[in-house]
């Protein structure tokens, strides 16, 4: 137990949490945007996967930022594809999402084998690049807290910092710009923006595109930092976990961040625990994030219910 606590309160653990959270957080923000616009995006998983592959392949030939950008574009294009089928051809959004996921599992392997000359599993014979980490060793100069600060803040992926910024940016967009107002209005009660002359379909389409772009950055982080390279199915369910995080996070960017962080923490715990507690079956350790989500969800919903009751009180 002491060992566990020491591990959990170490700087290494913190860094691990940030690293595992980052891809999830991007996907969660992506899920949040489309969810707020009224479309449940179950394709986050597939979007991440395709973006991961795109980023890896492009990074062989171009600088890392071009690779990340192309990952974003790939995600955005999938969002556009979903928008086309869902909004134009009126296909059910959940089905479209599942189709994108299926497309991604097969399509990435096919594309990978084309890109690597026959390798269907991994990209190890491609020299793909990494997203740089941000070195803050100058923090050492600060007296007393300097080294601790550095060990906590230094060496995170540049995209982790971007993720933090994106939480703010998404919040700003949603709650401080007119377009955010439109988007939330479209999601909550489309008839209102419609009657106000806003093109509801267009708003939804752009939300899906943005959703894909954000999931795309998540995919890029996963394949250019958490692990450098691509292997088949490497997203391993993270897109679905992000979907859970959207709802767990009360459909608010800060909530989304906290929910993604919660998953990140438990993913990190599941990583350090086998080394500390040999006697716990591996499967049981792997259930931790899921059990925690269910419990957190119940607790959170229960409290939200109570809060709603409190609000009715103030209203009367």
């Amino acid at each position, binding site marked *: 137990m002491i060992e566990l606590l020491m591990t959990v309160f170490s700087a290494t653990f913190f860094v691990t949490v940030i690293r595992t959270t980052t891809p999830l957080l991007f996907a969660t923000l992506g899920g949040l945007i489309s969810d707020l616009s009224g479309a449940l995006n179950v394709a986050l998983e597939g979007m991440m996967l395709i973006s991961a592959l795109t980023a890896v392949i492009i990074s062989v030939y171009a600088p890392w930022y071009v690779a990340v950008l192309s990952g974003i574009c790939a995600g955005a294009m999938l969002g556009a594809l979903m928008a086309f089928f869902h909004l134009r051809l009126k296909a059910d959004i959940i*089905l479209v999402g599942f189709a994108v996921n299926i497309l991604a599992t097969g*399509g990435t392997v096919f594309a990978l084998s084309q890109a690597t000359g026959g390798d269907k599993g991994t990209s190890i014979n491609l020299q793909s690049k990494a997203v740089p980490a941000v070195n803050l060793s100058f923090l050492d100069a600060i007296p007393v807290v300097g080294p601790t600060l550095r060990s906590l803040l230094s060496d995170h992926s540049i995209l982790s910092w971007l993720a933090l910024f994106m939480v703010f940016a998404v919040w700003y967009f949603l709650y401080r710009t007119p377009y955010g107002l439109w988007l939330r209005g479209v999601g909550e009660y489309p008839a209102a923006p419609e009657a106000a002359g806003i093109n509801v379909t267009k708003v939804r389409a752009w939300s899906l595109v943005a959703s894909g772009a954000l999931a795309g950055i998540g995919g890029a982080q996963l394949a250019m930092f958490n692990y450098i390279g691509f292997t088949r199915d490497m997203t391993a369910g993270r897109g679905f976990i992000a979907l859970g995080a959207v709802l767990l996070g009360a459909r608010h960017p800060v909530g989304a961040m906290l929910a993604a962080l919660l998953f990140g923490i438990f993913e990190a715990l599941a990583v350090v625990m086998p080394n500390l507690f040999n006697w716990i079956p591996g499967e049981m350790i792997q259930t931790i994030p899921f059990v925690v989500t269910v419990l957190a969800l119940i607790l959170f919903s229960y409290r939200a219910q109570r809060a709603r009751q409190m609000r009715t009180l103030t209203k009367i």
Partner: protein
Amino acid sequence: MIGRETGRAVTAVVIALLVALVVILLTSADPGAAFQTLLTAPLSSNRTMGLWIDDVAKLTLTGLAFSLVFQARQFSMGVQGQVYMGGLFAALIAMSPIGATPLAIPVAMVAAMLAGAVYGFIPGYAKARFGASEIVSSLMLNYIAILIVNYLIRAHLAPQGTGQLATAKFPDTAIYPAILPGTRFDLGILVALVATFVVWFLLYRTNWGLKLRLVGHNPKFAEYSGIRSSFIMVSAMTVAGAFGGLLGSVFVQGRAFGNLAQNFDGNLAFEGILIAIVARSRPLAVPFVALAYGYLRQGAQLMGIRTDVPTEMISVVQAIIILLVASSFSLPGKKFFANLLGRKTTPAATPEAAK
């Protein structure tokens, strides 16, 4: 109505096949043979027919489970977890002394249904009591069920010392009898058909079913009419869970397996969503959708096995089929197709055509 929907679905399938043909032309050295395999392989032998029918049975059951919860306007994604729990309990019965008796199949089915029902009840109760989103809780419960089953198999149920991640074969008495010997055409399809009838009957002929549908249409109205909507909601998810659990039995006790192994469902449980949505959650439409979708699914699989079309392209074709079938309910250019067939589409004529 039904005629029009079928017409559109057929149009979509035709387009999907054309797209598949393009994919095949691009990736195969012998496109003709590959395309023919896609179209005809499921009928090529008794064995492949058995595979198709086995798929249909399973797709029907998962489609029914989803239809039930969708009709109550719940979005539980928990069929997969129920399948694992049902499979687990069916296996426990099959491996117990009962497994060697003629009671093995009925008792295991009931055990599987109970297990699935309990597993369906949990997210329902969490929603009714705490307002916890059933989408998330049921998705998480899926993962939990899979891991629990994985653990039990590895540590307790598999023959110890061999390191196999599956139980030994069940006794013959605990495995569904084949309808067509030597194939997977077994009791499962009958179970699925009976289940279809039962779900239809429950929904459209019983008091509970009407209440369930009214809750699905308008929970406030249901409450006003004196229907306890939270009870109906939880019971809908529980009953759907029972069908999910039953599917678990069909999986592990069917001729396809006859034992309990890790990750046995191959994600088929989720394809029930597709079936239910395309069938518009109408139980009687479910087996037909399953029949058509199962055929394409099987054709694509066999094309992957028999021809040089890369397996990965199979899933690409499958995705395109889903996209187009899902879109089929309002494909653009309906008029174009109608004109092509020499018909006129005046609005006034449609109500007649729809009947």
